[in-house]
């Protein structure tokens, strides 16, 4: 998906019932119903942790941007790309 400005304000909800394994700060996710598997690198793992159903993409960009101020632009791109990937794989959805 291509995320619009409005999409970035929506809350990011993870689909329930996924299986997750964290290995060396990276994450493998598998959803048995969707039979979808996904790999998230260290940055992706951080973003995943912040997808708690309450925060929007913009909120996550702000939080990580505070931590990694010198690479804020890159962080913003990474967050949008990874959340779009989660949505494309039906592992997450966006909700007003």
């Amino acid at each position: 998906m291509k995320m619009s400005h409005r999409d970035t304000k929506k809350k990011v909800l993870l689909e329930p019932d996924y299986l997750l394994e964290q290995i060396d700060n990276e994450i493998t996710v598998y959803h048995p119903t969707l039979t979808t598997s996904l790999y998230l690198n260290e940055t992706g793992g951080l973003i995943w942790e912040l997808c708690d159903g309450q925060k929007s993409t913009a909120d996550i960009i702000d939080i990580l941007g505070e931590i990694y101020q010198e690479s804020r632009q890159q962080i913003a791109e990474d967050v949008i790309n990874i959340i779009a990937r989660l949505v494309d794989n039906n592992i997450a959805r966006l909700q007003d």
Partner: protein
Amino acid sequence: MPPLYPVYSVDFAGMSVPIRCDNRKTLEFFKFLFGDLYGSTKAPSLDTSLHAVDTAATLTISLTEGSTRGLSEGEEKYTLADSSETLFTGSLNVQFAAVLFDQVIFHLLNHLKDGVALHSGAVVYQDKTILLPGQSGSGKSTVSAWLTSDHSTCRCSYLTDELVVLPKNGAGTVVPFPRPLCIKAEASAVIRAIIPKNGEEQILADKQGAVVPHRLLNPDFPFLVPPVSLILFPTYQAGSPLRIEKISPARASALLMTCDVNARNLADHGFRQLVQLARSIPAYLITYSSFAEFNKQLPDLFAQQDGSA
């Protein structure tokens, strides 16, 4: 009364599929495809219900009377059927072999719950098993064939080009599904070029591809299968130079899940078992378009697994 042929049982990972052949040609075809797998034979019988095993179907390959439309002159038409329907009709060619393998594998794995079945080639190099997992078209068969041939400086013994079962609590052991190499049409010329000249008449080849007895490439066939020590995910990409990339266990786990064949039979779809495998075994992506550079780069990679490089 025509002669009755035995019903052969294809046995794999504790499961069986009976196959009935109704004449000499179909029996030869069966033995060509399943020579490493058929176990017990049962007395000939016309009653399929006598052959009930773990799986539901008895497959039958039979000569079919009637129209030979679509076949070359002189070709005979055969039918593959289970107890309820005709599955395929045609000559005993590469496509017939592919359909028969698909059917046998489906019935073997249909109720398999004692391990994870993985779409994967497997070869043995110096008492270590190398897995080559991948989805259809990734090059499992082609890479397995090349590594097995005497063109490879890291010549391996062949286990399978299609399927392994990782037994539950097996600690790195694998059960390979040994069959002839099934080479798709696009790769057929490359593989036929590495077959010994006197072997051409032993392969089954047509425009759909080739079915190649693995002993033509390497007569050595390991009796015991050593534990897995390396995972290589092959990816064919036209025009690409050989690229070898080490990948993390998390990434390998996600890729292994895409090759999981019997996920629906397992409580967690085999996820934990495949994660455990990925945690304990080094994994690499291999992107290639030809085998020209394999002999330059693979020996170092294989040596690293010995801790000697």
